[in-house]
Each structure stands twice: as structure tokens, then as C-alpha cells.
């Protein structure tokens, strides 16, 4: 399948600062999370994807075409920037309709389409208020609306959940899901792991302008199998279980949680541990209340990779 976004040895630097460093990626359809700490190069990468920045080295193609100086491709891309980009004295409706006109709609169609996207992001009730009076979350939703205005095939959302209240977040996550079902390709960036986790399993980890890892969270976990994997077991005989498990070579350490007395097992072969555990539990009559691996959470993966 042809990738939607493809970059080869992509570099972008601001004077002495290397914002994007030799990035070669291939992004297919669906939702992809771009994850990294602040200053990792996420926004720069997205701006290179939308053609707002010119690569200093390498190239980036979207839908098989170069994006820099190719404004026709922007007809197929929707961009929601991280920073606010408003005239505060405009109303939400005026703001979105002005961008609809820039996208090439006639006045009547711009009007209809604006109402449609404002309804999609649940901003119809507040469309006539001045943007200056909007909350952070409302501003985010209006920004999201403008990115959808020309019904793009590819959506680049830079920190879209930033500043949203829980309901706003929930609705936006649902919208991303819905847009994905409607065949849109979405790249969503964030520095907050659970935000990305809620939207997709497919991630690109970026730090210091470099892609650290890409793929499914679990695939990434396999990539980093040199790092110990934590398994948390809450049971009635944690000390007994610890003494048994520590005899196996793949178990690096066992610790008791200070908070609730649960057992944290560090292993380099999690699959072997999982297959061994049921037998041990049955043999020793251990009652397990809870068993999970915090490592399945993106946070752990990210910590491992970033160091």
C-alpha cells in the first residue's frame, strides 16, 4: 500500500538547533500518534508535513507529492496548529468562514460548511461569541473545526487536546475515531501519553528531533526487550511468590510496593513469566486479585526509550 506520508533523511534546523534530524518515516492510513516531550520536534515535523516549513535536507512527500511549494496538496491536508492563531475580536463563525472562503468555497457553501464543522466539534451554540471570550478548550475546538473545513483526507492535529476539559477531550477523541472510520488519515501529536493511547496504538516516538521508535505499542515493546519488563501482581502471599519467582534466570528483581504491598516483578522475558505464573499460583494456593503490566502503558515504553 502506498504510504500517505513518506520522508527520507528529513532535516530541519533553526540556526544551531537541529529541530528534525534525519527522519525517514513512512506513515500509512489510520490514526498515528506522534509522541514526544516538549521541544522534541513534533510541531516542526507536522509543519514540514503541511508545507509550512522547507526541509533543509532530505524530502517529505504527502500522497506521493512533495509538499513544499505545492499548495494544491493543501487541499487534501487539514492542519490544526498547537498555538492559537486567531483574531480575538472575530466570532468563531467569522473565523471559520473566513478560512472556508480561503479554501475556495463560494459564500453560500462556506456558510453551510462552517455550520457543519462547528456542529461537528460541538461549537454551534457558541459560534457567535467573540473568540477572545472563549475558553482554551473552545479555542481548541474552533481550531479543529477550521482544519476540517475543506474536508481533507489527511488531518495533522498538533496537541489537539491541550486545554480541553474532560468532556471536550472525550468528544474530540470520539471525533478522531469517527473521522478515522470515515477514511481520514490522522496524525495527532501530544506529549501526554494517555492522550495518544486513547486514540491509537500506532505511534511514532520522537525525541531531540529523531524518531526513536515507530509501530504498535507492543511492537515497540519488543524492540526494547533489552530493558526489563515490569509485572505487577497483587496477591495474598507476595513474599512467597517473590521467593519462588526470583529463582528463575529471566527474573531480574522482585520488589514489594510500599503503597499496597503488591509484588513488582522485573523480567527480561515477560512471555515466559506469563506462561509460568498460573502453575505457580495453583501449586501454592495464591489468591491473585490483580495482575497487570505497567509496561504496556506508553509511559513505560517512552521512559525506556528516552532514557
Amino acid at each position, binding site marked *: 500500500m502506498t504510504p500517505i506520508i513518506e520522508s527520507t533523511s528529513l532535516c530541519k534546523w*533553526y*540556526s*544551531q*538547533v537541529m529541530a528534525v534530524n534525519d527522519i525517514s518515516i513512512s506513515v500509512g492510513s489510520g490514526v498515528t500518534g506522534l509522541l514526544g516531550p516538549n521541544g522534541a520536534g513534533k510541531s516542526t515535523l507536522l*509543519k514540514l508535513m*503541511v*508545507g*509550512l*516549513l522547507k526541509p533543509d535536507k532530505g524530502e517529505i512527500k504527502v500522497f506521493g507529492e512533495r509538499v513544499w511549494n505545492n*499548495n*494544491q496538496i*493543501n*487541499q487534501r*491536508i487539514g*492542519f490544526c*496548529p498547537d*498555538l*492559537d*492563531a*486567531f*483574531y*480575538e475580536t472575530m466570532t468563531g463563525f467569522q473565523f471559520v468562514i*473566513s*478560512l472556508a*472562503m*480561503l*479554501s*475556495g*468555497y*463560494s459564500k453560500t*457553501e462556506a456558510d453551510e*460548511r462552517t455550520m*457543519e464543522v462547528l*456542529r*461537528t466539534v460541538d461549537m454551534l451554540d457558541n459560534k457567535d461569541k467573540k473568540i477572545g471570550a472563549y475558553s482554551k478548550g473552545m479555542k481548541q475546538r474552533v481550531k479543529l473545526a*477550521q482544519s*476540517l473545513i*475543506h*474536508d481533507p483526507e489527511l488531518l495533522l492535529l498538533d496537541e489537539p487536546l491541550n486545554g480541553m476539559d474532560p468532556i471536550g477531550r472525550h468528544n474530540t477523541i470520539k*471525533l478522531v475515531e*469517527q*473521522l478515522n472510520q*470515515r477514511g481520514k488519515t490522522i496524525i495527532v501529536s501530544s506529549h501526554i501519553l494517555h492522550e495518544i493511547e486513547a486514540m491509537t496504538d500506532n505511534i511514532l516516538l520522537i525525541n531531540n528531533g529523531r524518531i526513536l521508535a515507530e509501530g504498535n505499542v507492543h511492537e515497540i515493546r519488543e524492540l526494547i526487550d533489552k530493558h526489563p519488563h515490569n509485572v505487577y501482581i497483587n496477591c495474598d502471599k507476595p513474599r512467597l511468590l517473590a521467593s519462588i519467582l526470583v529463582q528463575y534466570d529471566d527474573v531480574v528483581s522482585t520488589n514489594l510496593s510500599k503503597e499496597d504491598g503488591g509484588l513488582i516483578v522485573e523480567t527480561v522475558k515477560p512471555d515466559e513469566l506469563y506462561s509460568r505464573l498460573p502453575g505457580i499460583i495453583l501449586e501454592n494456593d495464591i489468591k491473585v486479585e490483580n495482575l497487570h503490566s505497567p509496561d504496556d502503558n506508553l509511559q513505560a515504553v517512552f521512559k525506556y526509550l528516552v532514557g
Partner: protein
Amino acid sequence: MPIHDLSYRHWEGKLKSHSFRWWAITYENLKVVLRRKLFIILILVPAVIQFFVFGGLIYGVNTYGFFSNLSLITPEFFFRFCFQQTFFILLICVFGGSGLISNDLKSNALQLYLSKPLTRLDYAVGKIATIFIMLECITLVPGILLFLEHSVLSQDTTFIREQYWIIGSIFLYSLILSIPITFLTLALSSITKNNRFAAIILITIVFGTTVLNGMLWVIFRARWTHFISYWNNIEMLGRELFGISKSSTDWQWATPIILILTLVCVWIMYRKIKGIEIVT
């Protein structure tokens, strides 16, 4: 009961051709500028009043024979009209043009505009057209109307037969009055996020060069000092176009000066109009 799908819907319509995408920028900006009542009352209305004063003179001369012994309606009459609009041209640029790009930079709107199917050129053309249209409305349009008024009211056809070229001069001079200052205004607007700062620099360049010209003239008494003033250069070109030049070579100096100034402004705009401002 039918259940309607309230989820995201694809848009099936057709977009307008790309050729006039810049018009959306112009339309929006004109709407914003012309929504300001003070701008209309203090700038556009007086500019229109000036047109009526000149129109009244033409009417008076042709209908009642006022000032007929002074041969009032000469090429210089039309030059005077155009050149006297320069005050309003400056006011339009200061109050209607200086914020056109700087406000977009201040609000980060440029990155959104350029993330749409809109080129930097479309954006620049849209901004240029915003000022240009306003300036032509107070120079070219009334200038042509005055010429037509005199042609219609004049009893003999001598004026039309002998002075028909004035209409071309009005057209060309309106361009000379509008284009360089449009680019100057937008270049200054593109170098700062503060529209007041852009306005102050614009006033300084336009008035400051005239003041400097006056000071240097007092010291050197040399002809070259006149070419320092922006308005002097514009005036010299006008005089040449309307055939009332004081010196036959003035325009040869004024033309490259205005041309270079305009090109420098185009270059500044090319450098500064970018989706992302990179601060290093």
C-alpha cells in the same frame, strides 16, 4: 421515526477555481477596514468631498463661465487633483494598510492561511489588492470621472481632440500614486507584529524624507536634494506625465528611485511572508 446521522459528513461540492483565491483575502480585509466608521468619516468622506470640489469647479467653469479667463481646466488641473489626493493616500495606508500583515503575524494567522490551498503569492496579492483598490477609488475613479465631466460639459470639442491623452496620464499617475506606497506599506507591515510601529515608520519615511529634503536644500541648494523626498519624486513623475514638468530630466532620476524603492519592498515582502516565523 427517522434517526439522522449527526456524525461527520463528507463534503461533496465543488471548489472555486484557484485563480481568484486571493480575492477571499482582499474581500475579508476590505470588510474589516470599511467596517470602521471613523475610517470612512475621517478619510474616505473628505477624499470624496475633494472630488466634489473639483467637480464643482468644472461644472462652474462650463455652466456659468466662472474663472474662464484663467483657463482653469488644463492638464495641471487634473494633475493637481491627483496630487492633492496624496494626503488621503497616506491616511489610507497608515490607518487601513499598516496592520494588514502585522496583525496576521501577531495573531499567528499566517500559518493557518498558508496551510490552506493558498500560496504566498495569493496572500500577497490579496493584501496588495486591498490597499490598491482603496487608493484607486480615490485617484483613478474620480480622476476619470472629472475628465468625463469636463468632456461632456465642454461646449466645443477642442478639449477632447487636443487633450485626450490626459485620460492616459490620469490612469498612469494613479498607478504611480498607488503602487509604490502600497508595497511600502505592506513591506513595513510585514517586518513587525505591531501595526502602530509599521504606521510610524511609514509616516517617517514619507514625511521624514520631505523634511530631510528641506533641510538639505537649505544647506546645499542642490537639485539632488529633491530626490530624497518620496513625495517630490512622485510629484516629478506626475508633472512629466501631465506635461507640466519644471525640468525635462527630473523623471529620469525619479523613475529609478521609485522603482528601486518598490523592488526593495517586494523583496522584503518575499522574505517576510512565511507561514512560520523562525526566531533564532
